[in-house]
């Protein structure tokens, strides 16, 4: 089970944090600080996995953003790496060539997409189509309900 997922920039700015177990705010801040330091210090050719406290950390960098997951001892590192990749693909598909700014200005959407993909730290669906359909249905619903402008999707 995934314990948490963090997105942060090369400059160490936290862009998204999702915690799948109850954690006190103070501990969260401490863990984020500590882990960012560890991960940002690593060089490009190093492995994407490391042991940290009692957890396995799996991370990957996409452009300026680091995607970093903490999973448990018995979890599979490689498949976690692909969980990250699939999440990136989902963001990409939804925003159209996603960049860090999309996630900053639409942070709530990023959370919604993540919730459609993972629940309680486990995968809900791996099909890109199913996940995006859920999100798009939601967007459609809001079009019906609200009168604000809705940008066309590609």
């Amino acid at each position, binding site marked *: *089970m995934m314990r948490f997922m963090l997105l942060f920039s090369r400059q160490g700015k*936290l862009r998204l*944090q999702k915690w*799948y177990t*109850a954690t006190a705010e103070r501990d969260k*801040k401490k863990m984020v600080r500590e882990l960012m330091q560890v991960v940002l210090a*690593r*060089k490009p*050719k*190093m*492995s*994407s*996995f*490391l042991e940290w406290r*009692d957890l396995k950390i799996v991370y990957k960098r996409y452009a300026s953003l680091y995607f970093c997951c903490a999973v448990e*001892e*018995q979890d*599979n*590192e*490689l*498949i976690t*790496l*692909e969980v990250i*990749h*699939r999440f990136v693909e989902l963001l990409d598909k*939804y*925003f159209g060539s996603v960049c860090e*700014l*999309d996630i*900053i*200005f*639409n*942070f*709530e*959407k990023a*959370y*919604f997409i993540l*919730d459609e993909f993972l*629940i*309680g730290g*486990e*995968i*809900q*669906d*791996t*099909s*890109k*189509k*199913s996940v995006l359909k*859920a999100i798009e*249905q*939601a967007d459609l*619903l*809001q079009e019906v*309900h*609200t009168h*604000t*402008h*809705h*940008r066309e999707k590609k």
Partner: protein
Amino acid sequence: MPAVSKGDGMRGLAVFISDIRNCKSKEAEIKRINKELANIRSKFKGDKALDGYSKKKYVCKLLFIFLLGHDIDFGHMEAVNLLSSNKYTEKQIGYLFISVLVNSNSELIRLINNAIKNDLSSRNPTFMCLALHCIANVGSREMAEAFAGEIPRILVAGDTMDSVKQSAALCLLRLYKASPDLVLMGEWTSRVVHLLNDQHMGVVTAAISLITCLSSKNPDEFKTCVSLAVSRLSRIVSSASTDLQDYTYYFVPAPWLSCKLLRLLQCYPPPEDGAVKGRLVECLETILNKAQEPPKSKKVQHSNAKNAILFEAISLIIHYDSEPNLLVRACNQLGQFLQHRETNLRYLALESMCTLASSEFSHEAVKTHIETVINALKTERDVSVRQRAADLLYAMCDRSNAKQIVAEMLSYLETADYSIREEMVLKVAILAEKYAVDYSWYVDTILNLIRIAGDYVSEEVWYRVIQIVINRDDVQGYAAKTVFEALQAPACHENMVKVGGYILGEFGNLIAGDPRSSPLVQFNLLHSKFHLCSVPTRALLLSAYIKFINLFPETKATIQEVLRSDSQIRNSDVELQQRAVEYLKLSSIASTDVLATVLEEMPPFPERESSILAKLKKKKGPGAVSVELEDGKERGDYLSHSNGSSTPSPSADLLGLRSTAPASGATPSAGSLLVDVFSEAGPSATSAGVNDDGFLRFVCKNNGVLFENQLLQIGIKSEYRQNLGRMYLFYGNKTSVQFVSFNTTVSCPGELQSHILQLEPLVEGGAQVQQVINIECLTDFIDAPLLNIKFRYGGALQNISLKLPVTINKFFQPTEMAAADFFQRWKQLSQPQQEAQKIFKASHGMDTEVLKAKLLGLGTALLENVDPNPENYVCAGVIQTKAQQVGCLLRLEPNAQAQMYRLTLRSSKDTVSQRVCDLLAEQF
């Protein structure tokens, strides 16, 4: 403002985010935020009712501020209001806020739960999913209480949409993990298992996480999942790369689901049904074969997904540990990865091989890769990979390669990263001791360790070398010579001075014959380091000096002069001053005899588990100590290697328990057996039969009153160490008349041996006599020893038979371990016969402290923070018998509501699991 806003843009929010991004300093940011907070507060408090859109916008701003790391203390109510909006986006933002920011404000929880309840019953799948996500995100006990009954119904209802089923399955999983006592098994559980057959791959993917968790906790109830999982896996593995459409990921069919299926199977032993097993072995072979095929794509995603399945399959093969052919193939595959150009694969191969090394089938195959692993330790550029290589070397070490591995680890230590040095030092120290064939090698290794990485050599390590040198007289001369040589180095580590001081003080005489290491040379060498050392080391050296005075009278004058100098006798440190004064006085007034007695060579240390091992266990949960915890065998090896063979002194016998058993007084047990058969058939006089109740009261305690009638009271006090026990029996004559022909015998089952000290045949009225019984446990046992007491009281023969409360758990030695270790070990003991389980009603109160006391009394270590559910108790211990050591894990799950317990025991020996389970089940 950048035009990146998506969906319904909240213009105000985007402006605010832009503002924050434009802030030049932290102060400016805080100022801007405070302004915004004031604005939002006034809007929320204002007279004008806010429309849904504004409310949503402000709540979203608060959320953004919170995620930036600032505290938010208002807005919760507005967020809760949004939940009951019928506009989707408003509801969605409300739920998001609650998910991120909810606290256990009970008033609010009630409102939130109300809103969730409405959405769950709305039959609108999108609303239902939102509500389920929220429950899963918060996962609090209050929510479990409110919804744990409802969600299983949604999950298995025939008309539930697939997307809702998926959310419901994972939501239920979250609740089960957080509050397992609230999620009650029922009719739904069997239907959940059949979701493995669902047509919708997404449903299977979500459901399998739930099923895996439930299975690992209740394997019996879910065991039908094994054949379902195998057939699902088989269908996926044999499908073409495009069959599964959207569930094919970079030409790999359903990698996530495949991994999950393989993981689920690891909750169980190999399938018993031959057909199922055959099909599974076929799948595993196919997966191994596919690894050799050329890749269908050059993308890393393709190889990652494919290899993820491969590693999970290898985990399953290791878990089964029963198919030598597959184990060796797995090992070869990992061997290929050891040299792969992808760092990730090298890392994982090293990690996975670590577990393979502990299987008897593949241990040898793993060893063939030793050169590659040593090379990895030397050349890998990534410290986390080097760490894995060191772990693997440690795991593959045995008698045949210990010298090579220890040498490599030592040379690696010279350049090792600071972060892993201490752990490396511990590992080297453990391997050196565990596989020491000749102890001079051991001494060399530890002294090298101190020379190379003295700063990282903890006290445990140098204490241990001294213990071993003192306990083994064949190595003492060599040790003295070697430390003497090591101390010649101009700069040597303070730990070396400590070891040197201690060893020369004890055994310097063994090398004093050589003029190059004459007593005075030895002393001068030690004393040349004195001024560079810290206070504790100086104190140790002073003790070495006084020992020198005893060993070598010719050094007395020189040493007395040193002790008398102002820098010693007037030292500002009180400990040093006191030692100097006392030693000086002792050396001048005591006679040679007295001096020789006071300063006699140290007696051998009692053997116990190496404190180094304990330290490594504490320091590092997973991996590091798995070798030791692997099996009683391995551990036994380590603990006992110097137990007997080396120490001729009688007091070296563990605790000295055995030495007190007199050769003469031993009761011939064959004879007493007859008596017992007789007495059980029909006790002759007024006596009581066998004391089952009294017996059970002593399972978790060692002292108390065992038996009482109008004539006699018997109290016991007992102590246990390793596989030995000593029991004191106190017979109190409650009458004013003497008992005559008072005679006791003990008959033991064959698994125990006992020695009893005979008593005088007369017990005066009102007197109490004490009797000692020594017990040795040869192997595990069920039947307790019987104590038979016969005496005459006023002419009538009294005959009493009592079960002595010697139970298998008395020979527990507690084992501390981290959660990861515990669960790994637990998993390894997953054969059905290794487990014993009882579900029973509480017959006493369920008070936590009382439960804990009982579990501690059982003799195991009570492990904190291991079980995810704080209500449960888990314990670990090793039962020490002469023949073997049996590792034992225990889990007690109280259900306060039902006043029931479930008790599960797992151990490497079926009779032990069952016996401990039976005994303990009577205690609550």
